[in-house]
């Protein structure tokens, strides 16, 4: 819903100050989404995929090359995505999510399939250091808490916890799901 891909059934949703879905068009292009699916075509290479997304977001090709180097995929950038490892695909997906320099990043388990070296590699793009507003979904309370300002814990689809991260412990979050 935050990505404007789903319509709310009830209530009022505002993303980056715009009402969803009425003003969804105002926020598209300002959001970067990194979910379970990489949103990349398996038969195309990382470079072809990123160039395709660059056209959709009206971004210059130089940015594609810059990001391929940034996620260290430049040497495998012309191979079809289906021939790359899950970790490499995730790195390409990270590059895709930040290609248009979004203000808001929506990240669902962003470090899945990434080894520690790859996590360090993508951190400047999607980590706290990126300087972007981020909404992170994580099943790792400790890891999520470490880089959060505000924590929202959901239980049965409803907000069971909404507090500043400094006032919440990982155990407290873990309790929600027991």
């Amino acid at each position: 819903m935050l990505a404007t891909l789903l319509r709310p059934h009830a209530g009022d949703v505002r993303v980056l100050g715009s009402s969803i879905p009425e003003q969804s068009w105002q926020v598209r292009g300002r959001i970067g989404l990194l979910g379970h699916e990489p949103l990349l075509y398996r038969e195309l290479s990382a470079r072809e995929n990123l160039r395709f997304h660059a056209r959709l977001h009206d971004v210059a090709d130089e940015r594609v090359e810059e990001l391929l180097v940034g996620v260290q995929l430049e040497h495998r950038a012309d191979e079809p995505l289906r021939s790359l490892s899950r970790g490499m695909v995730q790195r390409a997906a990270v590059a895709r999510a930040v290609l248009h320099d979004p203000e808001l990043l929506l990240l669902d388990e962003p470090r899945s399939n990434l080894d520690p070296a790859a996590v360090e590699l993508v951190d400047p793009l999607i980590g706290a250091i990126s300087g972007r507003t981020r909404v992170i979904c994580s099943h790792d309370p400790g890891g999520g808490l470490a880089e959060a300002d505000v924590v929202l814990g959901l239980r049965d689809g409803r907000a069971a916890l909404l507090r500043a991260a400094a006032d919440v412990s990982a155990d407290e979050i873990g309790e929600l799901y027991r």
Partner: protein
Amino acid sequence: MSAAAPETRTANAAEGVAGTPAAAGTPRRRTFAVVRALLRKELLVELRTLESVPAMSLFAVTTFVVFHFALNRNTVDGDLAAGILWVTLLFAAMLGVNRLFVADADQGGFDAFLLAPVERSAMLFAKALALLCYLVVLELVAVPAFGLLLLGPSLWHGLPALVGVLALGDLGVAAIGTLVAALAVRTRARDLLGPLLALPLLVPIVIGGARASSPLLALGSQGEPAARWLLTLGLYDLVFGLIAFALFDFLLED
């Protein structure tokens, strides 16, 4: 090093690397650029997978062979020839229609497109153009094969007019096929729903195409298709082109 730290990212934006529009210009030019990118992607994926066009072409040629034995005739002409040609092309086209949005639905292409600040109709145009390309390739294989395997009269005399009739039929199939494929692809029964919705809508194209082609495929043909059937096909294309344009945004967003 471009895994940009915040200051680098800001600098990039200031220098216009990430933020510089690649296709700056009017919204219409931007939409053309997006259509071109979508079409290029579509054709690249098809070239790599060869999932649609070879299957469509092989289906058409095989069907002509089946007709040859089923009818127990060496040659056909006139109404029968036109009927066989158009029915075969229709079912072959359905193979392409059914697969038109599969990669987008299965690999997140829809979501990626919806996240981009672009005209939704760009996808309609790109997909319809891609389907049109598939149909042209199909006909480049199927029509000569039909001429060799089944057709009695020479194809040569009526060929220019037949190309025109086929082009009118293709436009309608592309518009209806794209609309129906977008509707069916996000359902569980997409392989069933696509043909179920498309075939009734495509029947008038088969009727119009067959009636217009019939004189071209008759013995002693002078190569003149009936103008009223051409007009019917043209109007049908126009109506469904407009319907597809009006509905596509809602189909994609909802």
